[in-house]
């Protein structure tokens, strides 16, 4: 357990807590980006360089920006009058704590399965080989999934001309 790991863990967790806690959504997203960057640092420490950079590009770069856009479109930047947390927020917090207790308990009772010396780093070329070799079918399916998600997202967010309220989600609020 070295200093680098401690620092990474601290940044990641702090970012995550801030992302959940902060009242202003724009700030929350920025904290989220910090947390993502922390996870990327953890990947680098684990020896998964490619994943680390992918994490930086996709999460910090793309997903965070996407969320910011959504926040702006739905005017989430304004802090609402009723508070940002649910009325009975302590129920959720309690459940989360319980889950953490269970998971942490499981993790702490688990030792290393092999010595660090046994591990050999994996090059990007090898990773790519296995991606288009053994996992090629999953890769194809993923491609289809992404295409479908893209089309679905566009359709969902399509603003109907002249009918701003939209009817495709059913009637009014009950």
């Amino acid at each position, binding site marked *: 357990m070295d200093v680098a*790991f401690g620092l990474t*863990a601290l940044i990641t*967790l702090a970012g995550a*807590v801030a*992302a*959940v806690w902060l009242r202003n*959504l724009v700030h929350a997203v920025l904290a989220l980006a910090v*947390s*993502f960057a922390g996870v990327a640092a*953890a990947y680098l420490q*684990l020896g*998964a360089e490619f*994943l680390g950079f*992918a*994490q930086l590009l*996709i*999460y910090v770069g793309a*997903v965070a920006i*996407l*969320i910011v*856009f*959504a*926040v702006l479109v*739905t005017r989430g930047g304004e802090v609402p009058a009723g508070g940002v*947390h*649910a009325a009975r*927020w302590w*129920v*959720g*917090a309690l459940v*989360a*704590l319980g*889950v*953490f207790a269970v*998971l*942490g308990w*499981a*993790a702490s009772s*688990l030792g*290393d*399965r*092999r010595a660090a010396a046994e591990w050999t780093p*994996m090059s990007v070329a*090898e*990773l790519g080989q*296995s*991606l288009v070799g053994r996992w090629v079918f999953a890769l194809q399916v*993923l491609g289809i*999934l992404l295409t479908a*998600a893209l089309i679905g*997202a566009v359709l*969902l*967010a399509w*603003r109907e001309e002249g009918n701003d*309220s*939209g009817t495709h*989600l*059913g009637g009014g*609020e*009950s």
Partner: protein
Amino acid sequence: MSPLTGYLVLSAALFATGLAGVLTRRNAIAVLIGVELMLNAANLNFVAFWRYGAGGPDAAGLVFVLFTIAVAAAEAAVGLALVIAVYRHYRTAHVDEVKRLRG
């Protein structure tokens, strides 16, 4: 504490934080932020086990993470589109005001 345990505990904490966000925040986008955190926790688990687990010289852990990242991107896109659609319909992005599933 061994390195594996360290990463697993970090991942568990990340997961619990995300879960807390999903359960307590009112804004749908904030819920989505929590989901992203939980996904990252799962990814961290994959990589930790790939590095310190009992598996052979196999890229499965990394490939799984790559796939999760791609699926998460799709999820984020669709989820945000849903949020926008819900916002347009209900004039709110707060999940506790959307309760047509009430029994």
